[in-house]
């Protein structure tokens, strides 16, 4: 393989993982913007999505209804979680809320372990067919599904933000929570909405990636972390930033694993993250400057 086709190969596999990171990062940003919480359970939403999908398909449900049903199931679980745990903790400080999400993610992982065990589950690709060759690089059809789904979901998200009441209300909370409240936007409803929406994003990511990486009960931890990294690279409050951060992280990781060392893959991603933070302390798309006190 020539260097050019090798690079193309890394780029393509980076884009696939990057799409997943982007979806997770978007969930982070939405929840953080509305509630100020860093939700460490975000990765578990991805795992739950994949697990429900595998179980439903295994039970003989056709792909499309299984997909819709899995997403709805994850949304219900997360809705209960927000209602039961996040809302009850009114007096908690931001650090305590983060610990609550860590506790929830531990509990979800434990329940997944009880229900599904430690075995990795495999999901059949959405469409059959061999790998596709592009300019010396190969790509499995499922990767196209991942990239396509990411693009479609992102388009839908931006449409929702721009043109629907809920999207506008969400953006209003992002700009100024207090003013949004004065305008009659219920922050509790918005918090629930943000969590459930992020759950749907995570679940979708888990479903489309399942045929490529297998689904295990503990896949959520690392995915959640990478999503967090992507979100911070993008500035933590910018939705386009989260998407670009996610894709950039995927590509950097894949290039690092291919060109330097696969063992140092995670290390490289984090070294770049630290460099980004040192050079631009507010993230690539963040605003960093004077703050009113």
């Amino acid at each position, binding site marked *: 393989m020539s260097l050019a086709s090798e690079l193309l190969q890394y780029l393509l596999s980076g884009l696939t993982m990057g799409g997943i990171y982007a979806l997770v990062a978007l969930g982070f940003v939405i929840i953080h913007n509305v509630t100020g919480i860093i939700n460490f359970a975000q990765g578990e939403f991805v795992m739950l999505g994949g697990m429900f999908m595998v179980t439903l398909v295994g039970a003989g449900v056709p792909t499309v209804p299984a997909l819709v049903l899995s997403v709805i199931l994850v949304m219900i679980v997360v809705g209960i979680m927000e209602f039961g745990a996040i809302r009850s903790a009114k007096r908690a400080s931001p650090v305590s809320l983060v610990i609550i999400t*860590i506790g929830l993610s531990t509990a979800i992982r434990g329940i997944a372990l009880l229900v599904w065990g430690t075995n990795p589950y495999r999901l059949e690709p959405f469409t059959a067919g061999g790998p596709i060759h592009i300019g010396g690089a190969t790509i499995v059809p499922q990767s196209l599904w991942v990239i396509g789904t990411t693009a479609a979901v992102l388009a839908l998200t931006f449409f929702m933000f721009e043109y629907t009441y809920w999207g506008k209300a969400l953006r209003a909370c992002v700009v100024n929570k207090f003013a949004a409240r004065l305008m009659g936007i219920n922050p509790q409803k918005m918090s629930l909405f943000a969590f459930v929406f992020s759950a749907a994003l995570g679940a979708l990511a888990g479903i489309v990636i399942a045929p490529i990486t297998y689904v295990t009960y503990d896949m959520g931890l690392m995915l959640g972390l990478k999503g967090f990294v992507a979100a911070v690279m993008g500035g933590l409050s910018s939705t386009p930033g989260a998407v670009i951060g996610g894709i950039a992280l995927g590509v950097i990781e894949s290039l690092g694993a291919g060109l330097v060392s696969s*063992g140092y893959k995670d290390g490289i991603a*984090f070294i770049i*993250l*630290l460099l980004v933070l040192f050079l631009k*302390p507010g993230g690539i798309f963040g605003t960093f400057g004077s703050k009113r006190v």
Partner: protein
Amino acid sequence: MKELTRRKRLRHFLIALFTVFIFVLPFFVSNNYYLSVLVVIGIHTTVVVGLCLLMGYAGQISLGHAAFYGLGAYTSGILTSTYNISPWLAILAGAMGTGIVAYIMGIPIFRLKEHYLALATLGLGLIIHVVFMEEVELTGGPSGLSKGIPYLAIGNIVFNTDFKYYFLVWTVALLAIILANNVVHSRIGRALRSIHGSEIAAQSLGVDTGKFKLQVFALSAVYASIAGSLYAHYITFISPSPFGLMTSIQFVVMAVVGGLSNIWGPILGVTGVTVLTEGLKSIVPQLIPQAGGEYEIVVFGLILVIIMIFLPEGLTSGVVRLYEEWRYRKERADETS
């Protein structure tokens, strides 16, 4: 002023009382398993005391402390097993090395704030963990150091049983607590609390916030490193797995569960979390016979959530608040009767 000295005296009295309790306790614990749990609690307490200084007083989060813990453990392990250097010198080398690493890495990291700071420390921790995994010639890679790490010894006393090691570990832990207590109630401690309150206000009053944050970060890294060295000489074998992200998160959880702004927080937090984990490990299989060892994490996660919902300032403040509410109600009852 009189009130102050009285509180100070009470504090010293409590510390003395606790010291006596700690050194009498092992004579009543005959079970080796319980002793080993107490040793682990002592080691973790040392780490968490440092972390509490950083989080509770300076108000800065660190999600990478397991890496400093690991740096101490690996420095001790490698220097004593591969290079036959005296364990005590190795502990000192580890502590100094880790302190210097933390100080230098802290310079750019502590320009960041809040979530960015959390992420940067998390990244630092992961990078160091990857180095433990990948530098196979030095660290033995994922399977760990192949050569045995010697026990610690003073003269003829070799610390090779849980009972003897208990005293060593808890002496270190108590020294760590006393030192932290002195730092907190000194000029530096007041400066740190001012950073927690409002960094900008502190700066405008002439507190060199950057310097203090770095110093307390380096101090907490030294604590973690010494605890790591003690861990290495206790288990006498190390591999990268106990020094990963989960351990870092566990340290933060212990600190927050105990309560951040009180010197008793770390002890309560570490004891609470450790007893809970160990207790669930033995209780859950009895209740559900077919359940394996790892199912206790469900209960653990839920209990964590419940503690944080009902006692968001942690166990120490929670207990104090409950006591004050009870006293208030009692006084009210006395007045009306």
